[in-house]
C-alpha cells in the first residue's frame, strides 16, 4: 500500500504533535536508567588502555612481560591480538590499537585486564614500549606542505589527475559545482573573498565511552556498551576479532550523548579481546582525558570563500576551497562540507574544492552535521559582508537568493519541497529581529542546511494479549526518540500513547539497523514503526474478518477498532484492538507487524538563526544576550523534543564559536583534555533559546517528518561571527572567538583608527 495514498495523509493527527512524558523518563529522573558504565557481571575484571604519549612515533617493540607477571593481571593485549585486516576496516583496526606507528597523542598501544582498577593501572606502568619519536604535524595547512612529515607512505591523493607520484598527507581532493564562476564574478558589482579558520571541537557528550564485554571459550560473546549503533559495533568488532557475527550479541545501554562521536568503535573490540584472552568479563570505561585524547573530535579547517553580488542583491557566483584535517586517517567530512557549503542558495555559477588532510591528531568522528558548520561559517560570514557592502538587510539578501523547490542544489540534484524561505520569513517576522540593540551589541543571522539520511531499519511491533503494544526498535534513543515511536505507533493503531512501550532491542532480536545518525531515527525508525503498525492493523482487520466471517477487505480500522465496512457496515459491533488481542490465542496466534527496509528520501532540513551578543570592548569577552532558532521539522512528532534538538544544537554551536578548541603544545600533545580547559557552555553562559518550528512536509515520509537533530548546529558559528562583527565593526574569520583573539582584533582596529 503506497504510504502517500493512505487515509492518514492530510488528516489531522490525534497523537502526533502532542507532548506526552517520555517512556524512559522515570528511570532517568530517579537514577535507575543504566548507562554504559552502570553494568557489572560476576567475576568481572577491569580493563585499562595504555596510550601513546607521542604525537608520532614508530613502535619498535612492546615488552609486557612485567605487567603479565603482576599478580591480579589476567590479560595483556596489543595489536597482535586482532586480525591484521587490509580491507575497509583497516583504519578502524589501526585506530583501535596502534600497529607499526603511534599516530597521535593518546593512540592506544596496549591494554590490560586485572582484578582491580589499581592493579590495572599499575600494570600499564610496567609495559615497556620502545618508541622512535618521529616529527609530527598538527595544523592542516602545515600538513599539506611538501616538506611536512608524512603519516602514511601509501597515501596518494585521490581525485587528482594524473595520480601523484609521491605520497602526501592529502588523502583526497573533491570538487562540486556548475556554471561558469569566472563569468559570474565578472558580472558582479561587489566581490568579496576571505579566508577562515576553525579549530577542532569535541562532541563533548557527558558520558565517557564504556562497555562490558564477555567472551566465552565457546567463542560466543556478549557486549554491553553505550553507542549510537550496536549493530555497527557488532559487525565491526566481529570483523576485527575474527568472530562470526551471529556469535556476538550487543546490547545498547542508555546512551549519555553522542552527537556523532559514538558512531564508531574505540574500546569495544579491545574489551572483547581482553575478555577472550582472560576468559572473564571485562569492563572498560574511558576517563574524560581519554575521551578527549583518543576519540573523535571534528576537523579543524581552513576555508577560503569568494562570492560576487549585484547591487540588486542577486548573487552571481560563489567559489570555495576547503581544507579539513581529519586526524590520523583519511575521512574528514570535507566532502560533506563542500556539498553543503552553498546549499542554501540558488546559484547559477558555483565551484567548491575540498581537500581531505591527515595530521597527528585523533581520528575525527562525525559531529552533528559533519563538515557543514565550518563551511557554513565561512559562506554565511561572506554573505553578511555582501549584504553590508550593498546596503541590504541580511535576511532580505538571503531571501532573494534562497534555495527553494526546483532549485538545482550546488551539490548537483534538484531540491524537492524545502523550508528555507519559511525559516527566513519566520526569523524576519520574529519580535527578536526588530528588538532594539544597545551599545557594544550586535545582531547576527545565518542559515544552515543538512541533507538528513534514512538508512537500514528494522522494527518489530507486537500486540500483547491485553491490547498493549510492544515495539522493538534497533536505533539507540539518544534524545527521546522512544517517545516519538510510541506516538507514531499509537497514532496508527488508534490506541492511547501509554499503551505502547518501545524498547531498544539487542542485536539478536532484530535485523540490522544503521546507527543513530544523520538525524534519521524519528524519520526512518518512525517510518518503519508506521509501516509495522499498518501491517499489524491489516492482520487485526483480517482477524476480525475471520471472526465475523466476512472478507478481509470488508473491514476497516478506525479509532482503534475494526469495523465492518461496505455491504456489511453496521452488521457487527466493532471489535477493539483489545478485544481482538484477547482472542488472538484462539483465533490464529500472536498478532504482530514488522518492517525491514532501507529508508530513503529523508528530506533536507533548513534553519535560520538569530543571535544578539554584547562584546566587552576592554576584555574582548562576548555575552550571548538573545538567541532564536527557526527550523523546518517537516512535521514535529514530539515538539518538546524537537525544540530540545534546536536548542541543543544552537548551544553547541555557540560553544564552538566562542571558546571550544583543541589546544596542542609544540610537542604535539593535547593540552586541554578535560572540561576545565575544554570549555563547553555552562548554564550561566546562555540565555533562553527561543524556537520556531516551521513545518514544510517531507513527501518522503507518511507524516511529513524531516530529521531535525543536525541542522541546528550549522548556522550558529556564522550567526555568532556576524553578531560579533556587528557589535565591534571587526570581521572575525577565526574560531573560536575567544576573548584574547577578540581583544587583539579590537586593539588592532583601534590602532588603525588612531593612525588614520
Amino acid at each position, binding site marked *: 500500500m503506497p504510504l502517500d495514498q493512505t487515509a492518514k495523509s492530510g488528516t489531522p493527527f490525534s497523537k502526533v504533535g502532542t507532548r506526552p512524558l517520555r517512556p524512559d523518563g522515570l528511570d532517568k529522573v530517579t537514577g535507575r536508567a543504566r548507562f554504559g558504565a552502570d553494568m557489572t557481571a560476576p567475576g568481572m575484571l577491569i580493563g585499562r588502555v595504555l596510550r601513546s604519549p607521542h604525537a608520532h612515533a614508530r613502535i619498535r617493540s612492546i615488552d609486557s612481560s612485567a605487567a603479565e607477571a603482576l599478580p591480579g593481571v589476567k590479560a595483556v593485549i596489543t595489536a597482535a591480538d586482532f586480525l591484521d585486516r587490509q580491507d575497509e576496516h583497516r583504519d578502524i583496526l589501526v585506530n583501535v590499537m596502534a600497529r607499526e606507528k603511534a599516530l597521535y597523542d593518546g593512540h592506544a598501544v596496549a591494554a590490560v585486564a586485572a582484578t582491580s582498577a589499581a592493579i590495572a593501572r599499575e600494570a600499564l606502568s610496567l609495559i615497556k614500549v620502545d618508541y622512535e619519536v618521529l616529527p609530527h604535524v598538527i595544523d592542516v595547512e602545515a600538513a599539506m606542505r611538501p616538506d611536512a612529515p608524512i603519516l602514511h607512505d601509501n597515501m596518494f591523493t585521490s581525485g587528482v589527475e594524473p595520480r601523484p607520484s609521491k605520497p602526501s598527507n592529502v588523502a583526497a581532493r573533491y570538487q562540486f559545482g556548475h556554471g561558469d564562476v569566472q563569468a559570474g564574478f565578472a558580472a558582479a558589482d561587489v566581490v568579496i573573498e576571505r579566508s577562515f579558520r576553525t579549530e577542532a571541537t569535541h562532541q563533548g557528550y557527558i*558520558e565517557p565511552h564504556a562497555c562490558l564485554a564477555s567472551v566465552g571459550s565457546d567463542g560466543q560473546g556478549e557486549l554491553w556498551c553505550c553507542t549510537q549503533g550496536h549493530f555497527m559495533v557488532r559487525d565491526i568488532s566481529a570483523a576485527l576479532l575474527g568472530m562470526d557475527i551471529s556469535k556476538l550479541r550487543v546490547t545498547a545501554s542508555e546512551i549519555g550523548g553522542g552527537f556523532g562521536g559514538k558512531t564508531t568503535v574505540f574500546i569495544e573490540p579491545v574489551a572483547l579481546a581482553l575478555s577472550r584472552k582472560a576468559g572473564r568479563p571485562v569492563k572498560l570505561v574511558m576517563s574524560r582525558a581519554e575521551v578527549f585524547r583518543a576519540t573523535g573530535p571534528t576537523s579543524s579547517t581552513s576555508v577560503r570563500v569568494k562570492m560576487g553580488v549585484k547591487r540588486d542583491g542577486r548573487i552571481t557566483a560563489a567559489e570555495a576551497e576547503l581544507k579539513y584535517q581529519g586526524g590520523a586517517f583519511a575521512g574528514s567530512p570535507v566532502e560533506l562540507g563542500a556539498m553543503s557549503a552553498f546549499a542554501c542558495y540558488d546559484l547559477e555559477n558555483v565551484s567548491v574544492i575540498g581537500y581531505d588532510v591527515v595530521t597527528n591528531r585523533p581520528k575525527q568522528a562525525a559531529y552533528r552535521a559533519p563538515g557543514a558548520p565550518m563551511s557554513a561559517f565561512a559562506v554565511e560570514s561572506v554573505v553578511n559582508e555582501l549584504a553590508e557592502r550593498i546596503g541590504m538587510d541580511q535576511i532580505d539578501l538571503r531571501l532573494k537568493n534562497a534555495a527553494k523547490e526546483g532549485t538545482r542544489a550546488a551539490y548537483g540534484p534538484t531540491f524537492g519541497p524545502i523550508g528555507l524561505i519559511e525559516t527566513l520569513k519566520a526569523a524576519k517576522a520574529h519580535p527578536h529581529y526588530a528588538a532594539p540593540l544597545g551599545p557594544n551589541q550586535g545582531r547576527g543571522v545565518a542559515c544552515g542546511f543538512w541533507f538528513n539520511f534514512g538508512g537500514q531499519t528494522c522494527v518489530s511491533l507486537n500486540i500483547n494479549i491485553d491490547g498493549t503494544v510492544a515495539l522493538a526498535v534497533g536505533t539507540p534513543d539518544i534524545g527521546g526518540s522512544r517517545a516519538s515511536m510510541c506516538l507514531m505507533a499509537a497514532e496508527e493503531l488508534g490506541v492511547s500513547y501509554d499503551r505502547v512501550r518501545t524498547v531498544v532491542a539487542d542485536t539478536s532480536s532484530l535485523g540490522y539497523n544503521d546507527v543513530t545518525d544523520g538525524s534519521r531515527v524519528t524519520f526512518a525508525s518512525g517510518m518503519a514503526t508506521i509501516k509495522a503498525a499498518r501491517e499489524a492493523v491489516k492482520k487485526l482487520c483480517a482477524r476480525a474478518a475471520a471472526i465475523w466471517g466476512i472478507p478481509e477487505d470488508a473491514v476497516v480500522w478506525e479509532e482503534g477498532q475494526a469495523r465492518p465496512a461496505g455491504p456489511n457496515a453496521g452488521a457487527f459491533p466493532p471489535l477493539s484492538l483489545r478485544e481482538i488481542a484477547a482472542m488472538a490465542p484462539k483465533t490464529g496466534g500472536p498478532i504482530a507487524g514488522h518492517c525491514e527496509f532501507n529508508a530513503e528520501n529523508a528530506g533536507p532540513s533548513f534553519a535560520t538563526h538569530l543571535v544578539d551578543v554584547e562584546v566587552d570592548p576592554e576584555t574582548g569577552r562576548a555575552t550571548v544576550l538573545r538567541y532564536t532558532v527557526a527550523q523546518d521539522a517537516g512535521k514535529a512528532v514530539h515538539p518538546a523534543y524537537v525544540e530540545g534538538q534546536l536548542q541543543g544544537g544552537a548551544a553547541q554551536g555557540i560553544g564552538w564559536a566562542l571558546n571550544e578548541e583543541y589546544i596542542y603544545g609544540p610537542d604535539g600533545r593535547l593540552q586541554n583534555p578535560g572540561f576545565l580547559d575544554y570549555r563547553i557552555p*555552562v548554564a550561566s553562559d546562555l540565555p533562553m533559546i527561543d524556537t520556531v518550528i516551521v513545518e514544510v512536509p517531507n513527501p518522503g515520509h507518511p507524516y511529513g517528518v524531516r530529521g531535525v537533530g543536525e541542522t541546528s548546529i550549522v548556522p550558529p558559528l556564522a550567526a555568532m561571527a556576524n553578531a560579533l562583527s556587528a557589535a565591534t565593526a571587526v570581521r572575525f574569520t577565526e574560531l573560536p572567538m575567544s576573548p584574547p583573539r577578540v581583544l587583539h582584533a579590537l586593539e588592532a582596529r583601534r590602532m588603525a583608527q588612531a593612525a588614520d
Partner: protein
Amino acid sequence: MAARHVRSIINGDAVEFVCEPEESLLDVLRDRLALTGAKEGCGTGDCGACSIILDDRLVCSCLVLGVEAEGRRLETIEGMAQHGELHPLQRKFLEHAALQCGICTPGFLVAAKALLERNLNPTETEVRYWLAGNLCRCTGYDKIVRAVLDAASEMREGRHAA
C-alpha cells in the same frame, strides 16, 4: 594499604561499607553500593554529574574520599523520590522535557534540590549560576532552567497552601 570500614547514613538508611583510603566516594557509591545514579563524567569536579548532598552541602562525590563519609549523612538521586512519589523537580523535569540523553539529569536534580532547599524563589540568573557546575551537552539548558523555576513556583504554592 589497608581497607577501612565506614558507616554512613545514605538516603536515610544506615549503610556500612569497606573501602580503600584513596577510593573516591563516587567509586564507593557506584562500585561498592550499586548506587549508580551518580555518574562519572569527568572525575575532576568539572561536570557535576556525580553531585550528591553530604551533610546538607552539595558536593561532587568524585572529589570526596569514601572514608570521609564516616558518620556523615548522604543524599543521592536514589533517595529523591519519597515513598514512590517523585519530587516536584523530578516531575517538572519530565513535564518540561528537560532531559535528552539523561546522563546529567541525576546531578542536575540533586543540585537543583540543594538550591531550592536554600532559596525557594530563585531568579533565572540565580538558577543558572547555581547550576553552572552541572554540564549538559544536549539541551542548551533552556528547558532545565524552566523546569527548576516551575518546580520552585509549585513548591512555593504548596507551602502557602499548607
